[in-house]
């Protein structure tokens, strides 16, 4: 069937509907391939365009090789060659994996603790005026301080142990999520609150069935921001306080002018952060299928 063929191609869901609506046989339903309705100004989707991304990546890797191994234009101390980087990967595989796990564990734990407490606290502030007025000045005083600026204090209070790093990571998530949650809960469209009350919801039910549902998109967005923040803070804390983890390996390698390890470590951090971001995106798109403009 001609329509089947065109549906496999570059057709929008809308177009698929249009052809499908024609239903059974008959001359009018025999749509020639590629002639279903198209949307003006739509962002072009093609199966060939992703090839460009592969191409640009290949060019970068080629240039990398060309400037290092190929022509030796860049000093090995400034930037290692692909072969040096690969040697690091094969030689230090075990150590790198261990370090990656140590860092990931710290990020996940402090992210989970910080976000959970932050959302809970933000909800309490949104629900009880007294709590808001008590806590708000303190939060507003601490919030502008960049988390990394707190590292000296953390070292004074907790030494170089795990507690301090987890606390720092949690704190930055907590501060971010408290404010995001509170503001989102405060800004829920009042028409939903009124509608719920007029349908028989009491105050607690309004909170549970309207406010908690309506703020999910903002919370998911905030939690995503927090994941990125936590990577930054934990790696920075590892520079200064840890005896293991990717941050520790990076700073040690930098001090010993071991550029290949610096490069590989940086790539690992980037890749881990990218992976977590992807997982969050996958989960969040399921939580927010109802949001306008979000393709379930």
């Amino acid at each position, binding site marked *: 069937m001609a329509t089947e063929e065109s549906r496999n191609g570059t057709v929008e869901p809308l177009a698929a509907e249009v052809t499908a609506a024609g239903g059974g046989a008959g001359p009018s339903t025999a749509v020639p391939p590629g002639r279903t309705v198209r949307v003006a100004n739509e962002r072009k989707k093609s199966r060939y365009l992703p090839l460009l991304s592969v191409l640009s990546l290949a060019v970068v890797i080629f240039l990398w090789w060309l400037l290092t191994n190929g022509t030796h234009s860049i000093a090995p101390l400034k930037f290692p060659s692909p072969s040096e980087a690969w040697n690091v990967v094969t030689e230090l595989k075990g150590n790198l994996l261990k370090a990656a796990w140590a860092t990931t564990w710290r990020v996940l734990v402090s992210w989970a603790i910080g976000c959970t407490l932050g959302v809970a606290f933000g909800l309490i502030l949104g629900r009880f005026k007294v709590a808001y007025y008590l806590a708000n000045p303190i939060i507003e005083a601490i919030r502008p301080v960049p988390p990394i600026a707190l590292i000296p204090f953390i070292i004074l209070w907790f030494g170089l142990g795990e507690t301090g790093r987890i606390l720092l990571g949690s704190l930055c998530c907590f501060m971010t999520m408290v404010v995001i949650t509170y503001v989102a809960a405060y800004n829920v469209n009042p028409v939903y609150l009124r*509608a*719920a009350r*007029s*349908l*028989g919801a*009491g105050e607690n039910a309004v909170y549970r069935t309207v406010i908690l549902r309506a703020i999910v998109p903002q919370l998911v967005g905030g939690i995503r921001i927090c994941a990125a923040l936590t990577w930054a803070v934990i790696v920075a804390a590892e520079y200064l306080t840890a005896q293991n983890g990717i941050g520790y390996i990076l700073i040690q390698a930098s001090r010993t002018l071991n550029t290949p390890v610096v490069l590989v470590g940086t790539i690992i951090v980037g890749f881990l952060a990218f992976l977590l971001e992807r997982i969050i995106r996958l989960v969040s798109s399921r939580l927010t299928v*109802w949001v306008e403009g979000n393709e379930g």
Partner: protein
Amino acid sequence: MTSTAVATDYLALRDVSVYYSIGKENILALDTVNLEIAKGETVCVVGPSGCGKTTILNLVAGFLFPSLGEISLAGERVDSPDADRAVVFQQDAVFPWLTVRKNLEYGPKRRRAFDADARRRVDHYLELMGLEGFADAYPKMLSGGMRKRVDVARAYVNDPEVILLDEPFGAIDDMTKNHLQRELMRLSVEEPKTSIFITHDIEEAIYLGDRVVVMTPRPGKVKEVIAVEEARPRDLAWKTTNEFQEMRRHIQSSLGEM
């Protein structure tokens, strides 16, 4: 209880005045409004914008308290929103995070009355409003007119005593609006509800109302109340009759004199 069936003050506003404070000034928005509505009656309120039409609805819904006077439903003073008074808002108030069916189920669930009968009502109103095919769709997939149907269905499913409609079709194109008016007409025959319908559309007010209340500009007062005797169900074609147009001209001039 004394013959509530014929009581004309089932829903009553008595000497209701509302002042809004803007800065240091108090502005009179509603000036001693008196309105008595019988059980099952539909009263449409028309008036220039800013005359306090929506304020009346918010008062009856329990979202606002009058500065002076009192509002009562079946002899009880109205002092908070409750499931006995459903509201269809001008804005889109369908919960976007619930499917169409879950939106309709929301009221009965909150009242802890989600039984077999409530399920039947949900199915009934899904069908009646032409929403069966969209029961499991999220509101974002529906057009504005469809969402209004969901909103109206949600109000009826909850089986309230009173339905309050605040310019529900204000933002909807004429053709869809005619459809929706006809559906409301059908509902008013099938399941008569005491209703207040706020609108700025005179024809809509006459078509749907048992009475049309004409308001003055701010401060809003009841200028005139016109009874519409035509039996229900009313055909849309009735709008083109002389009788109808005579009423429309009358209300228009009543609004225009101000």
